[in-house]
């Protein structure tokens, strides 16, 4: 016994290599999240709010700087086309071109969401704990996009979800509906995680490994039973689609979007979608590309269901936040069309769509948070009647954002839809593209309904007031609207970046 113990003591464990430069953005965000928890513990209550904003902003700025530094060094290292990226931490994290793009997107959207959360002038007023939770969620999303094995992906999924569940319940006003949203999101999210985990177990049984690359190798030409592979894939994808609020797995979306504080909804709507579709793209492309003929039909169906549910249920909504929630379900369907195109155009167009959609959505929620009546936000559509007469600027901005969501030319939404659909066409999915176009037209109707309501109805007597936005909200809405316009007019730069390279495993 003792000899055995001594023999153990002599063995050397070789720690995996860590490319600190590559994963610095993640480490910075998570490290500052811990710092933010310490601020929560040791700083007096009155000074906490300002300091926490500073910590969170510093985290995002430093992470962005280190990301830029890594991108430039990475580009310099590998000749004219640039290196494809690095995998590090024993292959657990793959920092490749799509991951870098998604990290950049997440950090940029994180800045806007932080601005909305940080603005207390228009009734935000959450507990200061929202800032560490925000940073943890952001860090989890960044890991999720880059996770190269399913176990890392699962832990990252939990790291991003758990803070979001909590943030949903943080509203001070309308506490009950906010906490109901949190509980609902938590319970359904736990189920989705269980699905993901079950799928992971089946895939491990199939491939004998949780690495995406190993699953891909195992799937190519073996005589193993495909039941485990496709059972595992199905369950895994259910977990992922839930996070992306796609199709029939969307049931949490309207309630949670409506109940959560509006700034948190903005963060959740934009960034979770980016992270979830980043994960979906990576899993489908890296691990399941070779078996695409077997599963692509199912995802066709899911994409159609998602577009149909989003467009048709969106028509019947009377609440602005619920309407945007159903619009996000429809957009998830469009994104899925790009994600299952399974070619390089599909990848780059989906990445572009995610960026464009994120900016537009955050700006829309920023606008929604400004229209208030005595009892809080006036989210009921009837209260928005004739808003243009009372506040032409706000109505104009919101109209522009709605047109972007509908995909009208000169907005980023149009370019996004255009590149996604053309990638799908090139992959021979013409019927799906036709269906998607039909549902875009249906969805455009309910955006236009709001526009008509704002411009051509008489304002109600006791209608809501438009509060004067604080500096932070103004900046967030302005930036979001500006990017929406910029990407609609000059999309080339971002499209180039998005199509600079594929996944590395």
């Amino acid at each position, binding site marked *: 016994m003792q000899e055995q113990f001594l023999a153990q003591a002599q063995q050397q464990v070789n720690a995996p290599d860590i490319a600190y430069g590559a994963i610095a953005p993640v480490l910075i965000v998570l490290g500052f999240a811990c710092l933010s928890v310490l601020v929560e513990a040791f700083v007096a209550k009155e000074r906490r709010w300002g300091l926490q904003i500073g910590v969170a902003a510093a985290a995002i700025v430093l992470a962005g700087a280190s990301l830029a530094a890594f991108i430039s060094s990475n580009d310099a290292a590998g000749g004219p086309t640039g290196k494809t990226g690095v995998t590090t931490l024993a292959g657990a994290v793959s920092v490749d071109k799509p991951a870098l793009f998604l990290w950049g997107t997440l950090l940029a959207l994180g800045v806007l969401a932080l601005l909305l959360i940080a603005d207390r002038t228009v009734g935000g007023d959450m507990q200061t704990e929202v800032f560490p939770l925000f940073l943890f969620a952001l860090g989890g999303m960044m890991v999720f996009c880059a996770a190269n094995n399913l176990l890392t992906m699962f832990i990252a999924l939990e790291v991003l979800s758990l803070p979001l569940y*909590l943030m949903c319940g943080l509203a001070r006003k309308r506490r009950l509906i906010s906490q109901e949203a949190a509980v609902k999101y938590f319970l359904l999210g736990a189920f989705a995680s269980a699905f993901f985990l079950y799928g992971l177990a089946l895939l491990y049984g199939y491939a004998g490994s949780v690495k995406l690359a190993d699953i891909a190798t195992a799937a190519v030409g073996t005589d193993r039973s495909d039941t485990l592979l496709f059972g595992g894939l199905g369950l895994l994808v259910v977990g992922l689609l839930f996070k992306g609020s796609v199709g029939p797995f969307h049931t949490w979306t309207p309630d949670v979007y409506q109940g959560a504080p509006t700034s948190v909804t903005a963060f959740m709507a934009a960034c979770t979608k980016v992270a979830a579709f980043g994960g979906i793209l990576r899993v489908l492309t890296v691990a399941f590309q070779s078996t695409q003929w077997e599963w692509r039909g199912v995802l066709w169906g899911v994409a159609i269901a998602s577009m149909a549910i989003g467009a048709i249920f969106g028509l019947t909504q009377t609440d602005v936040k619920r309407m945007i929630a159903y619009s996000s379900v429809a957009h998830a369907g469009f994104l899925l069309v790009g994600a299952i195109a399974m070619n390089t155009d599909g990848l780059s167009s989906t990445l572009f769509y995610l960026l464009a959609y994120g900016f537009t959505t955050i700006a829309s929620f920023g606008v929604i948070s400004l229209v208030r009546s005595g009892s809080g936000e006036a989210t009921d559509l009837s209260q928005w009647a004739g808003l243009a007469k009372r506040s032409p600027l706000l109505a104009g901005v919101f109209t522009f954002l709605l047109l972007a969501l509908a995909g009208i030319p000169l907005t980023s939404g149009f370019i996004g839809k255009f590149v996604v659909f053309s990638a799908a066409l090139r992959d021979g999915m013409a019927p799906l593209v036709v269906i998607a176009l039909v549902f875009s037209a249906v969805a455009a109707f309910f955006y236009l309904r709001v526009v008509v309501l704002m411009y051509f109805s008489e304002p109600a007597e006791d209608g809501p007031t438009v509060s004067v936005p604080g500096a932070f909200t103004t900046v967030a809405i302005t930036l979001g609207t500006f990017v929406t316009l910029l990407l609609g007019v000059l999309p080339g730069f971002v499209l180039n970046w998005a199509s600079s390279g594929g996944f590395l495993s």
Partner: protein
Amino acid sequence: MSALMSLLAQAPAAPAADPVTTGEAVAFWILGPLALAGGLGMLFARNAVHSALWLVLSMLSLGILYMIQQAPFLGFVQIIVYTGAIMMLFLFVLMLVGRDSSDSVVEVLRGQRLTAAVFGLGFAGIAVAALVRALNQVPSAGLASVNAQNGGNVANIGRALFTDYLFPFELTSALLITAAVGAMVLAFAGKERQARKTQRELVIERFQGDRPSPLPGPGVFATANSVATPALLPDGSVAPESLSELIEGTSAELFGEERASVAGTGHAADAHALTGEEAAR
């Protein structure tokens, strides 16, 4: 988590065939039905405490199964952490909430249970049938050979945790911190803590207010000694402040008659009491 541990325990599995021995088969056919019974019992027990205990049975059986399948560390972790720590915490919470509270049997959505049962059974049927078929083609790979290498089961798990799975392992700490922050946020919902006033401040405040004396107590009369009976002022009028605000607030009209009778404004014996005039009023 248990799935995670099982993955970690099996990570370096070699594909060497390792036949199932008779003892293992016997243990499986005893423990398997027990685990299944525990799961079903947990679902169908009306009482929450019974549910928890059924779950303990299920977890214990699984723990022993892990040990038999050459994963002793995982088995002990399952029993110590899950059955020992987490389930006991569960029971604590149930006892705090009140063990009498049981499931509501009201269906909110009509036909939901039936539909859920049908779909659930269907899914279970498909999953079991498919997995049985799939797993029959898979050779059983034991852990015996791997457990003999590199210092055994525990050492191998430790090695996997700190090499291949270093990042997920470290990332779990973010999860734990979030959970701690979340418990704080939900449990301590920002109550404004005010400094308690001292006796001196209270006295000063009282003398600066409009009534330095205590409020009059309720009236005690030959006819009534209820706290709801107001006191009378020297001029015979009712002193409304002699009644607790609580009583005032809750059901003023309930005490209206008593107050009126004490003040002498109530109605006296009425010759027309039986004509129904009272009821009409």
